[in-house]
């Protein structure tokens, strides 16, 4: 294979085994310089192991890692080029903020004043110029996180590794730091890999997301691609929410879900009668007030007509969950006894007067129904 351009980081068929358990199976990945990449997945999916292998903190059992074209697989951590921030921050409790940040600069032949200037600059960068003399225990979680970040950046590494850096913080601080992290990355342009199990974090921060599950990469793509074109039922369910519907193909563009014929737009080349998983996102389900003539809704003009009449169903509200900006409605389908979940903007829910036992007519637009071969990977 000819390579047009050498990627910044090239992970080639990396495997890692703990006893009989394969934490990583044949993982390959290319990361370009300056990218912000998130490893996203449930706990135990191997994302942290992959990060630690890139840092040299774990020894891989197979495969290679190339950084700027140089094979670093055999190098110990101390000879690799990276800065790292751990979930615990691992700040030195007996050193104040200045000494923590300057820890990697001392004893490197830099003058005392050069170190002090660099530390000052870094503290300004993370907005802690006033806190230099304080000890970690005196700082809030968010401030400790910034100190850890400044310390990791002190030696100007070309790769920044972040191991769930925000997960120990409360929701408000987390959202705030997320924005700052994004701005910092845009300012410094340092290639960044962040491990997270929080899909919202990954969607808002990353240039590209690497979704992992059971030690393999499920999908690599931009946040939009991952969300709109998930390549497996697992990704569809893990990133955002979805209704996984076990079904069987019954013809071109048609699938049978528990006795209901549904039209679906995205059909892979699968033979009839193949077992598949259909997914439809809760926000893509369209709700109408109940009408006796299922194929003739009252508010016809305001809604896009479905591609096929068979995707119009009758349903009864089973349960209603108020979630602020929207309501999550779980509905019981009269035709096949299954449950579907839909998200409706709160204003619309109020307008429709949604309540338990309320009868509805719903549309499952065919272009929003995705089809995945077999549901082995469905979560």
């Amino acid at each position, binding site marked *: 294979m000819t390579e047009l351009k050498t990627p910044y980081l090239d992970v080639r068929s990396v495997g890692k085994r703990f006893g009989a358990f394969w934490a990583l199976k044949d993982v390959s990945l290319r990361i370009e310089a300056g990218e912000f990449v998130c490893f996203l997945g449930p706990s135990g999916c191997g994302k942290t192991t992959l990060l630690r292998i890139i840092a040299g*903190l774990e020894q891989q059992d*197979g*495969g290679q890692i190339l950084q700027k074209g140089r094979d670093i*697989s055999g190098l110990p951590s101390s000879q690799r080029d990276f800065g790292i921030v*751990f979930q615990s921050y*691992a700040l030195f409790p*007996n050193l104040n903020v200045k000494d923590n940040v300057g*820890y990697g600069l001392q004893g490197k032949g830099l003058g005392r004043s050069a170190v002090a200037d660099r530390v000052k600059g870094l503290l300004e960068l993370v907005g802690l110029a006033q806190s230099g003399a304080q000890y970690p225990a005196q700082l809030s979680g968010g401030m400790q996180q910034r100190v850890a970040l400044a310390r*990791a950046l002190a030696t100007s590494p070309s790769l920044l590794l972040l191991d769930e850096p925000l997960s120990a913080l409360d929701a408000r601080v987390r959202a705030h730091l997320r924005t700052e992290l994004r701005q910092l990355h845009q300012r410094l342009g340092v290639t960044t890999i962040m491990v997270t199990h929080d899909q919202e974090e990954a969607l808002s921060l990353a240039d590209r997301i690497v979704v992992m599950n059971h030690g393999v990469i499920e999908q690599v793509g931009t946040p939009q691609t991952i969300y709109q074109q998930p390549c497996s039922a697992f990704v569809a369910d893990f990133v955002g929410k979805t209704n996984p519907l076990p079904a069987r193909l019954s013809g071109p563009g048609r699938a049978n879900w528990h006795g209901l014929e549904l039209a679906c737009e995205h059909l892979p080349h699968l033979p009839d009668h193949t077992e598949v998983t259909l997914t439809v996102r809760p926000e893509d389900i369209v709700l109408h007030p109940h009408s006796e003539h299922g194929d003739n809704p009252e508010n016809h003009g305001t809604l896009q007509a479905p591609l096929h009449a068979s995707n119009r169903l009758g349903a009864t509200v089973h349960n209603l969950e108020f979630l602020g900006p929207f309501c999550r409605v779980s509905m019981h389908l009269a035709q096949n006894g299954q449950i579907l979940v839909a998200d409706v903007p709160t204003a619309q829910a109020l307008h429709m007067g949604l309540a338990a036992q309320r009868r509805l007519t719903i549309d499952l637009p065919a272009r929003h129904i995705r089809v995945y071969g077999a549901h082995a990977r469905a979560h």
Partner: protein
Amino acid sequence: MRAAWQRLDRDDLWMRFGVVLLVLWLAVTLVLPLGTLLIKSFRDADGAWVGLANYASYFATPSLTQSLWNSLWVSTLITALVLPLAYVYAYALTRSAMPGKSVFKALALIPILAPSLLPAISLIYLFGNQGLLKDWLFGASIYGPIGIVISQVFYCFPHALMILVVALSMADARHYEAARVLGASKRRTFWTVTLPGSKYGLISAGFVVFTLAITDFGIAKVIGGRFNVLATDIFKQVIGQQNFAMGAVVGFVLLLPAVLAFGADRWVQYRQVALLTARAVPLVPVRHTVRDASLWLFCALVALAMLVMLGMAVWASLVTRWPYNLTLTLANYEFSNFDSEGWQAYRNSLQLAAWTAVLGTVIVFTGAYVLEKTRGFALVRGATQLMAMLSMAVPGLVLGLAYIFFFNAPGNPLGFVYGTLAILVINSIAHFYTVSHITATTALKQLDAEFEAVSASLKVSLGRMFARVTVPVCLPAVLDISIYLFVNAMTTVSAVIFLYGSDTKLAAVSIIHMDEAGFTAAAAAMAVVIVATSAGVKLLHSLLTWQLSRRTQAWRVR
């Protein structure tokens, strides 16, 4: 594709080098001597291999097996007496709202600062042939099991107390609230919450007391009279009859119950699950007049007994001629009148304690660090960990005997240390290794496991990190280790009785010699000097810890 094996960097190599040094150290100071002792027990006086013949003749000698039986029942009795006493005392310190807790705690720890000989000497003055309270024994003699048991109860009490205080302070107030809400009576709450919660502490304390009691030599020597126990048997076989092979056999017989107790304790500790989670609500004792008053009375009686023991020794050391001339004098402190070494023995002890504290702390802490933080090397590290824990199970007397065989063996290149202060220092470090090692390991485990990874990513060497972060953060533990080693080296008898040379006689040994020669008052005086030294150093240590924590541990205060 087979992965390239990660190369070791310089730090990895240094750490592994450190582990290897530690293995060598523990092998030379502990494992090889014990091995030599074992081999010795299979040989006759001329060095010929006789298999189990020595053991057979041991068990065929009624006077020797009698000692084994004596040791077992006396130690069991001591354990049965110490545990309830220490448990109630610890309960009062942790679960009552009685006044004066810190004073009571300090008084209860007095015996730790003294050689085990001190309570025995005091008992002789109280209940001996010319004792103050001789009538209290209704004609029974203090020389024998009664004296041994009472002295040992004093000597072992603080060791059990410390473990039980820790066990009882780990209480989650929520359990007690739950019991109250569910309508459990006080008695039922004690049996269902308090006692199960401190069960492991109680078991652990039991093993510690039993091991201390069965392995101690000084008390049986001074107050045992004609009542023989294993520890005195070893001494008689080796020093009295020069029967080294039989000494080795008795040594192994003594090692056995200690190792069993130790193994059982480890097993119990392993089964213990953390009772206290991070979310536990600490229990704050509330005032309860009747309970607090009765516990205070109990503690006052125990503390009084401690003070009487110490006071009796001090008084006896100051009296001209007991019991005929009670005028006070300092003549008993003119040690050169009673023992050839005089005050030199005390100076030797000071030197030994200082060297043991300094060198021991460096070796133990650095050793624990390399064991804890070396990457890979798992088998060697596991084996070393086992060796570090083994030392606790080895009675001092057995270790001392093993040192004779090992270091005095012809052809041993290390033979030059025999008879010097160096062998005493090495022996003391080896003897008190385990507790220090556990202290260091516990402190190191509290450090964030990612410190080393951070240092590696910032290209800072481990040595630099050790000096700038690890040692400063662990300073309280480092100081604890040094004071523990100092006090133990100052007070120990059993570990060094076989090993001192003509010019390295120690204070604790001279107590035994002066007592044997009938100069009991001088022996008491020397014991008092040792207590005063230990207490003084302990005080200094507290001041130093307080000073240091103000300067370097500022980060601990929010």
